[in-house]
């Protein structure tokens, strides 16, 4: 299973879930496409500028391989303080 998380504005559109990824979803970019195909509204939000992807709690500078046991988080623009 792969854990998928959503934060900020994205968390209004999708719940955290544990999924078995299809065989062709092997990196974070393919995962984004797969999630977008399942839910057009979420897909639109994931395509917005400023969305970051974290793999196992580290923000990715570029798409990276993903598989069972990983935790992938889609992050709306950060806003603390």
């Amino acid at each position: 299973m792969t854990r998928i998380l959503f934060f900020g504005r994205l968390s209004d559109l999708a719940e955290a879930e544990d999924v078995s990824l299809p065989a062709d979803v092997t990196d974070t970019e393919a995962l984004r496409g797969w999630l977008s195909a399942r839910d057009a509204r979420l897909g639109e939000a994931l395509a917005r500028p400023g969305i970051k992807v974290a793999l196992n709690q580290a923000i990715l500078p570029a798409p990276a391989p993903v598989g069972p046991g990983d935790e992938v988080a889609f992050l709306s623009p950060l806003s603390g303080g």
Partner: protein
Amino acid sequence: MARIDARVTRNPFDPETEEAAFRASLVRSGALVAFTGMVRGEDGSDPVTALELQHYPGMTEAAMRERAEAVAARFDLEAVLAVHRVGRLAPGEPIVLVACAAPHRRAAFEAADMLMDFLKSRAPFWKKEHRESGPVWIEPRSEDYEDARRWDEGTP
């Protein structure tokens, strides 16, 4: 290296109680700069009724510590404190406290300033304002990103 205390709390916290304990721990500092951020309620015709703060448990605490370490690596500090509230907050409630203690005042000021800039746009927190007109997710303004960039290596 400075002592670092970085925490996320779901419960309300009292900035002055935290600061008093922080100050009591100091042995070589002549300067302490503390920043407290509070939920602003009054804001024209559409007041904020509550602020909701989300974090990414685990990642957020690690990021706060990492940001505090970056600040401590840059300035001569004795200690750094960062406390960040999450959950649902009422107007007037403290959101964040950052305190930096140093032998000299310029380091204390700049360190607190830098750490706040980092927490504002480079730590995994998300803010949703509940207004009378409905909820609004808050995103950093372009000046928040610029403020944080001031401290980047190689930035003019």
